[in-house]
């Protein structure tokens, strides 16, 4: 099981995956936007998105849980 956390304060611009989706390492899970920059959050392992903790329009803080890949 791998937890994916936010690395910075950002707005959640786009959620690319849904809970239950199968992802591979390097796949984009969500796209954050901070300071006029788009930052894709990538899966670091292969697996299934078991939890997705953010929705489009949310503001995440550094360290916030974004998703869990099981």
């Amino acid at each position, binding site marked *: 099981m791998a937890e994916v956390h936010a690395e910075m304060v950002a707005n959640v611009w786009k959620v690319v995956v849904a809970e239950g989706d199968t992802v591979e390492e390097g796949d984009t899970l969500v796209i954050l936007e901070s*300071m*006029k920059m788009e930052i894709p959050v990538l899966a670091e392992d292969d697996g299934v998105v078991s939890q997705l903790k953010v929705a489009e329009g949310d503001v995440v803080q550094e360290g916030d849980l974004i998703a869990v890949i099981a």
Partner: protein
Amino acid sequence: MLNETLGTVLIANRGEIARRIIRTVKRLGLRAVAVHSEADADLPFVTEADEAVLLGPANPAQSYLDVDKVLEAARATGARAIHPGYGFLAENAAFARAVMDAGLVWIGPAPEAIERMGDKINARNLMERAGVPVAAGTREPVTDLEQARARAEEIGYPVMVKTAGGGGGIGMSVAHDDEGLAKAFEQAARAAARFASGDVLDGPAVLLERYIERARHVEVQILGLPDGTVLALGERDCSVQRRHQKVVEESPSPGVTPELRERMLAAAVKAGEAVGYLGAGTVECLVDADKQDFVFLEMNTRLQVEHPVTELVTGLDLVELQLRVAAGENPEVRPEVRGHAIEFRVYAEDPKRFFPGPGAITVWEEPSGDGVRVDSGYAAGTTVTPFYDPLMAKLCVYGQSRTEALELGRKAVEAFRVEGPKNNLPFCAELLGNAEFVSGEYDTGLVGRMRAK
């Protein structure tokens, strides 16, 4: 004349550039009005203005980009002129028109000039007609991938893919092959749809251009006067970039011979004349340092972030010149470049990967002394929020020679203390120790090579 025509100037911007404009406005005996969002209420530019107006929430669409609110603030404070700074509404022709329609003085070029230069395809075609060299590329907007593939084959890989409108490196990437093109096209089309200003283009439009490997990004500062004269005020080398965005700029460019400089400055004047340019603008070029040749990239119809390096080597105040020109004056300007200036953009971002790092500022100590200029937007106790771009300050140094400027830069970077948000001062220090940068023989790939190690 200045006082009668302008009187009170509203600055439709934030942070360091608002503060910079306020400084000159007040020095000239004019009144300065700041407008700000809720997120920026504590920043120095708000308190330094003679009067400040809250526009709305942090979201730029509901504050800095809300034309009605900005015009209402001007009316309520008796402002007679609006300076847009850079970014936000600075290159929005519809806003410039709205300002003029409201009977106010627009401190910038004519809306028609903004329009002509805002669309990069249009601008390039116009430049070609004016006799300014341009890179091989698309003559018409590309709107689907198949078209893009066909054009890329004609131009030849690698190609630079970018949005026809927009700016600031958003949606720009280099495609080396067909596969890369699909990815780059999708990215640019998405950025075009999201960030295009809307008043220039009707839909996502993408531009393809031949990509010059190991090119330098060199731009010429121009100034258009009411009598039709266009002056070139030297060049700036902006090749130190990450994510296609500038980090360090210097003037003069160490990669340009006197002969090439003369040709570039003459072409920039021609470009300005072709659009009937008024005020401060910049003609951006790509330079092939090996061949000592250049092509037109785009024109920025505003004051630029990096204007201080030109001010340091020419001794001019570009904001003052903008104000005088907008008031109808024909200031006597003798463009003469002396010494060497370097600007380091201090960003709230991590120094390794350059990811944004907003946060509350606990320590803020700026360097000072002879040859050191800091244009900053923040202070200790203020917060860098995620809503706007990551520029916190510009650290500029000036010396009689490039060697002297580099030495001053090392001391000043070391003396600049920022705690709280992540910042790229360690990157600036790293750059000042990099042999390629120090030699002056660098290109736009420098930062990529530093990070690939």
